[in-house]
C-alpha cells in the first residue's frame, strides 16, 4: 500500500446540538413547502405555452406537482424509517426468530421483515444466517417477502398520493400474503430444494458482535445517511415513474383504461402480474403510475396486483437467490406469492 494520498483525520461532522436543532427545522421546512405544492406547481405549469386543460397541460401539471411531492415524501419517509430501523439489525432479528417454532413465527417474521434494515445485496448471507440458526424455511420466506412488499416507502407514498384507505388495504393484504405464503411454503417441505452446499452447511458461528451503543444523534445520522443514499439512488426511477404517470394522466382516454384495466376482463389481473415481474423499479417509481391508473378508473384489484407484482416479485432478486435456492424452489416461491397477489386482485375487483 503506497501512501499516495494525504489522508485527513476523520472529521466528526456536525455538533450534536446542530442535529437536535436541524432535524426539527428541516422537518418544518419540508412541511411548509409540502403545503404550498399546489399553488407552486400551478404557477410553474402556467409558464408553459399550452392550455391548462389540454392533454399536454394536464400531463405537465401532473409531473410538476408530483416530482416535488414524491421527493419530499420520500425524504421524510426514508429519514424516519432509517431512524426507526437503527433499533433493529439482522443479527437481533435472527436471535428473535430462532426461538420461535410455533405458528406465531410467521407474522412475527413478516413484521421483522419490514423493520429490519437489509439491502438486497446481502440477502444471501442473510438467508444463510437464518437457515444456519435453524429458523424454518417458511418463516425465512415470510421475512423475505414482507421486506419489499410492505416497505415503508411504498406505504408512505401510497398514503400521500392515493389516500389512506388504499394504503391500509395494501398494508393488510401485503402483510397477509407474506405471512400466508411463508406458512404454505413452510408446509411444503422444500428443504431438499435448497442448493446442496446450503443444506450441508453446518450451523455457521453466530457473528459475535459487541453490542453497539448508539446515541440519538447517531440514529439521526443514520437517517440522514439513508436519505442521501436512497434518494440519491432512486430519484431517477421516481422521475421515470412520474413521467409515465403523467403520460397516462394526460393522454390515455378513460374508455381505453377501463377496457384494459377495468374489473370486467378476467385476464386483466394475471396480465397485470405478468407485466409487473420484469419491471425493475421500486416502490417510489411505481406509485405515481398507480396514482395515475386509479385516477383514470383502473380497477383497484388489477392495480393492486400490478403494484404488488412490481414491488415484491423482481427478477434480479430471484437471480441473487439462485445462489442458495434451486430453480424449482424459486419457481414454487414465485408461484405461491403470485397466487396470493392474484387472489388479492380478484377479491378487490369482485367486491368493488
Amino acid at each position, binding site marked *: 500500500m503506497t501512501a499516495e494520498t494525504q489522508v485527513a483525520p476523520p472529521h466528526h461532522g456536525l455538533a450534536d446540538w446542530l442535529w437536535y436543532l436541524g432535524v426539527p427545522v428541516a422537518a418544518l421546512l419540508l412541511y411548509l413547502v409540502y403545503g404550498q405544492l399546489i399553488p407552486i406547481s400551478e404557477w410553474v405549469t402556467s409558464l408553459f405555452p399550452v392550455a391548462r386543460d389540454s392533454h399536454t397541460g394536464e400531463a405537465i401539471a401532473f409531473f410538476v406537482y408530483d416530482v416535488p411531492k414524491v421527493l419530499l415524501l420520500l425524504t421524510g419517509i426514508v429519514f424516519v424509517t432509517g431512524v426507526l430501523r437503527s433499533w433493529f439489525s439482522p443479527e437481533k432479528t435472527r436471535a428473535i426468530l430462532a426461538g420461535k417454532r410455533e405458528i406465531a413465527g410467521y407474522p412475527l417474521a413478516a413484521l421483522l421483515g419490514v423493520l429490519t434494515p437489509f439491502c438486497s445485496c446481502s440477502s444471501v448471507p442473510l438467508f444463510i444466517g437464518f437457515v444456519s440458526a435453524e429458523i424454518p424455511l417458511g418463516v425465512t420466506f415470510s421475512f423475505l417477502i414482507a421486506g419489499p412488499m410492505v416497505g415503508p416507502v411504498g406505504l408512505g407514498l401510497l398514503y400521500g398520493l392515493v389516500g389512506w384507505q388504499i394504503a391500509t388495504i395494501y398494508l393488510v393484504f401485503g402483510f397477509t400474503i407474506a405471512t400466508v405464503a411463508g406458512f404454505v411454503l413452510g408446509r411444503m417441505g422444500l428443504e431438499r430444494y435448497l442448493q446442496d452446499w446450503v443444506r450441508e*452447511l453446518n450451523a455457521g458461528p453466530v457473528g459475535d458482535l459487541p453490542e453497539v451503543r448508539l446515541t440519538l444523534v447517531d440514529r439521526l445520522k443514520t437517517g440522514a445517511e439513508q436519505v442521501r443514499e436512497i434518494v440519491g439512488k432512486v430519484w431517477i426511477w421516481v422521475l421515470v415513474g412520474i413521467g409515465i404517470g403523467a403520460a397516462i394522466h394526460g393522454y390515455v382516454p378513460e374508455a381505453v383504461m377501463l377496457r384494459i384495466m377495468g374489473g370486467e376482463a378476467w385476464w386483466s389481473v394475471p396480465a397485470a402480474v405478468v407485466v409487473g415481474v420484469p419491471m425493475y423499479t421500486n416502490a417510489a417509481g411505481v406509485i405515481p403510475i398507480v396514482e395515475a391508473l386509479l385516477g383514470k378508473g383502473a380497477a383497484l384489484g388489477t392495480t393492486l396486483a400490478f403494484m404488488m407484482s412490481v414491488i415484491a416479485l423482481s427478477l434480479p432478486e430471484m437471480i441473487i437467490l439462485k445462489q442458495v435456492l434451486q430453480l424449482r424452489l424459486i419457481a414454487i416461491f414465485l408461484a405461491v406469492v403470485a397466487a396470493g397477489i392474484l387472489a388479492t386482485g380478484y377479491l378487490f375487483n369482485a367486491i368493488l
Partner: protein
Amino acid sequence: MKTVKVYGSGCKRCEATETMVRNAATRLGVEVDVEKVTDAKSIAMAGVMSTPGLSVDGKLVHAGGLPDATKLDGWLTA
C-alpha cells in the same frame, strides 16, 4: 501487521469500507493486509449477515453499513 477482511459482495459501501480501512491504516502508520471476501458462502460462514462486515486478525468487529471512523482507528491500533 494486521490482517483485515472486508466482507461484502461488491456493493458500493463495501468498497468504501475497504478505502476507509486503507486510509485509516496509512494515517495511523499501521501495516495492514486487507483482503476482500466477496463469495457469498464465505461471507455467511464468517457469521456476517449484513454487509459490509469487517474482521481484524480473525475477529469479527463490525457488520452492516460503514464502520464508524473512530472505532475503526480503535480496532486497527488495538
